[in-house]
């Protein structure tokens, strides 16, 4: 029996288990690319607009950090600058989670043991997972190239850009193959790989910020840190600007090295074991842990910290970008119109800041959904049953979770607002005043988040089995209505479905109490429905 025996069968198992996820991934990435390319083409229709965009992007450190280096004024180059980082991060994380799911998670749950007792080679499970995931990345890249050509971009550039995205996926597939060998838990393996994604982002951002602007002002030549980041490699392909095809060999080389290393590690460890020993913890529960509130805090604090760091960095950067924003607006009236539509109001910089706060509030909605869905995860796991068999009422249990998610949302809103204010204040000379003003403005978004919490709670109470799907769908609908509704000129009735529509876009407009009170009342009603339904249904169900 060779070490690869059974790989084909296991690959079919991976395909069967993930047939829906893979379909969404393989079709979703090209569709998203197509939609983004179309909207960018609409905003920067002519050479003049793109010249303005390229020059501002090349000189803006914030744009370099978040969008990567710009490579000229070709429409394709602008599309890449606007979409590359988003798409690359998506495929990086999708690939990472998929690898862990089909390797370490199987070991953690014991499924791998069940399989391994059959005629299955040592490397077969890992190889099967990698085959499917690399194939998915390849197929998604092919379709993305087709989509970009379909959006009217030149063939060579489209293929290079799509291959660059696919290359990122392949690179992180290799990295996840290694992290899956290191950590004993799938959570740990995912955390390690996701940390690598984060580090790659930071290295790429640093390399692009430290890079040089070309003589004509429309290009950025990245510094060396971009070259040690798999996320940076995609930019170095220079799609639509004299493609450098050889750069695509880097992710392939990383894949080969990663697979070799993963095989070597798998050879040296026991099934289910890792190279990083799990940490021990306290033998006695600290008094502050021993209540529903204490437990909720314990379960949330890691997630909350991650969100806080991310939002603080993002808020501060967006605040600093506020100053550069004025230049960008001067260079591009179409972009100004788009920003205006999202934020509403006359004063452009305030519209920008309001749009940013609105965007943060939407993002924090994802935190609220994630935090509250813990109750459902606990229910599915069986932990909720153990907890409710103690002297804790259902109302108290669910209420505690809602309260914890709400407090987390308040903290994150405040943090996002204050850091945005600090960033903008530092460049305009009034850090404290701006921090207070934008912190307050951000908090006004809370009622919309309360409605999100209410929606999740109501779904959890009424349709527990559908909690995860329906809650995320609801947030996605709010997101699409908020970000694209005005641009797509949807009817007001449709826009009104989203609670975010009703939040006054402070500081672009004056605050108003009535819509906030109405939102709070709707949230209270939804919460009441959710709690009442939860009290009257079976657990688990």
């Amino acid at each position: 029996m060779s070490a690869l025996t059974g790989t084909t069968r296991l690959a079919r198992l991976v395909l069967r288990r993930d047939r829906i996820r893979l379909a969404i991934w393989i079709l979703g990435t090209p569709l998203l690319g197509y939609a983004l390319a179309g909207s960018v083409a609409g905003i920067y229709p002519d050479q003049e607009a793109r010249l303005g965009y390229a020059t501002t992007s090349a000189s803006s450190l914030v744009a370099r950090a978040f969008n990567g280096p710009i490579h000229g004024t070709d429409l394709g180059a602008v599309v890449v600058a606007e979409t590359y980082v988003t798409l690359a991060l998506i495929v990086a994380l999708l690939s990472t989670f998929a690898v862990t799911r089909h390797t370490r998670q199987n070991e953690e749950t014991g499924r791998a043991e069940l399989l391994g007792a059959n005629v299955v080679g040592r490397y077969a499970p890992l190889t099967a997972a990698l085959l499917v995931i690399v194939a998915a990345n390849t197929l998604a890249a092919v379709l993305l190239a087709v989509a970009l050509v379909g959006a009217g971009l030149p063939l060579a550039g489209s293929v290079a850009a799509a291959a660059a995205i696919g290359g990122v996926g392949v690179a992180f597939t290799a990295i996840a193959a290694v992290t899956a060998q290191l950590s004993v838990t799938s959570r740990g393996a995912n955390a390690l790989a996701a940390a690598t994604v984060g580090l790659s982002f930071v290295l790429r951002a640093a390399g692009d910020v430290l890079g040089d602007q070309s003589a004509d002002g429309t290009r950025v030549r990245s510094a060396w840190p971009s070259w040690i980041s798999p996320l940076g490699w995609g930019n170095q392909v220079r799609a639509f600007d004299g493609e450098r095809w050889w750069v695509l060999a880097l992710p392939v080389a990383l894949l080969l090295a990663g697979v070799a290393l993963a095989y070597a590690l798998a050879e040296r460890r026991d099934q289910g074991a890792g190279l990083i020993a799990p940490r021990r913890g306290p033998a006695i529960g600290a008094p502050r842990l021993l209540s529903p509130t204490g437990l909720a805090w314990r379960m949330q604090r890691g997630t909350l910290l991650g969100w806080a760091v991310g939002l603080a960095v993002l808020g501060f950067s967006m605040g600093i970008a506020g100053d550069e924003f004025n230049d960008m607006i001067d260079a591009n009236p179409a972009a100004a119109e788009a920003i205006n539509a999202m934020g509403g109001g006359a004063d452009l910089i305030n519209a920008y800041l309001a749009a940013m706060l609105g965007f943060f509030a939407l993002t924090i909605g994802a935190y609220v959904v994630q935090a509250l869905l813990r109750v459902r995860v606990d229910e599915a796991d069986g932990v909720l049953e153990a907890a409710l068999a103690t002297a804790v009422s259902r109302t108290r249990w669910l209420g505690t979770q809602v309260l914890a998610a709400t407090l987390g949302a308040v903290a994150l809103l405040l943090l996002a607002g204050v850091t945005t204010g600090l960033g903008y204040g530092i460049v305009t000379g009034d850090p404290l005043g701006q921090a207070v003003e934008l912190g307050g403005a951000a908090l006004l978004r809370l009622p919309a988040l309360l409605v999100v919490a209410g929606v999740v709670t109501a779904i959890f109470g009424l349709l527990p089995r559908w909690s995860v799907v329906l809650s995320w769908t609801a947030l996605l609908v709010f997101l699409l209505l908020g970000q694209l509704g005005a641009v797509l000129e949807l009817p007001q009735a449709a826009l009104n479905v989203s609670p975010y529509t009703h939040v006054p876009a402070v500081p672009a407009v004056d605050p108003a109490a009535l819509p906030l009170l109405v939102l709070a009342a709707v949230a209270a009603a939804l919460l009441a429905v959710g709690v009442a339904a939860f009290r009257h249904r079976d657990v688990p169900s």
Partner: protein
Amino acid sequence: MPVISIGNLVKTFGAIRALDGLDLHVEQGEVHGFLGPNGSGKSTTIRILLGLLRRDSGDAQVLGADPWRDAVRLHRRLAYVPGDVSLWPNLTGGEAIDLLGQLRGGLDRRRRDELLHRFDLDPTRRCRTYSKGNRQKVAIVAAFSSPVELYVLDEPTSGLDPLMEAVFQDEVRRVKQAGATVLLSSHVLAEVEALCDRVSIIREGRTVESGTLTELRHLTRTAVTVETARPVTGLDALPGVHDVHEVDGRTHLEVEPAHLDELLGQLIRFGVRALTSTPPTLEQLFLRHYGDDPAAAATGAPTAAAASGAPSGTAASGAPAAGSSDADAQVDAPQGGAR
């Protein structure tokens, strides 16, 4: 007053009728075995008793209260070990025990430490790294650390080794001594036999049998092997005698306990040289109730017993232990059926 009193309990999940008129009565201070094949509704019943599931119809009372309406108040007075223990993955075992205990209304710290020691459980490990057996120990320690009136245990020992099983049995006896009531769902028949005062057997959502083990034995046939001076005749005509066949001059048969007397009266006329009577093992008892077709399972019982080495094989189900000395088959050879 019974601690648990369930009458005509019905619970449906969609088209599936999980409980179909179930009855269960557990008296104060007893250890009550709750038995039935997989999927027969044991866990559903227990979840209704804990107020986790809502009953469709029927009566259910726990400690004199309604388990659905008075759930929180009741939960201060009972402790629960679920069949499939899942815990908060990032908490340590010690933290999980203290949390569950505190949420229940407090635990006895001295007892907790003693139990940790006896069950040989490392409380500093994260719950996600525990094996099934260790997760079960966490739940057992958390439950027995709380001095409560009722312990509801759903297959609590399915992942424990024999040593830990013994510790578990000690704990059940200890809380019983202290006056607590225990509802014990289990597939470990030796455990049931060693611990339970009474048992209820359920099948397809209904109670099919309830009583002491002795009472239940009355319902199952005793296997008799007899060697006589002259060939035995006339057995087929006797009431309650089944499956008569002869091998090597020995007669094998089965008899319903109520008709043992008539059988002995008949046998004695042929000059009995040796007689072995084997009371039904617990295993036979359950096979009879668990099988798809109860009648077929009853006649099939000797085969099952033979497969497990009938008389001496009773040790497998622990029949000669504790409870079987008061078994009805008093004609049983003193050496417990050994030839």
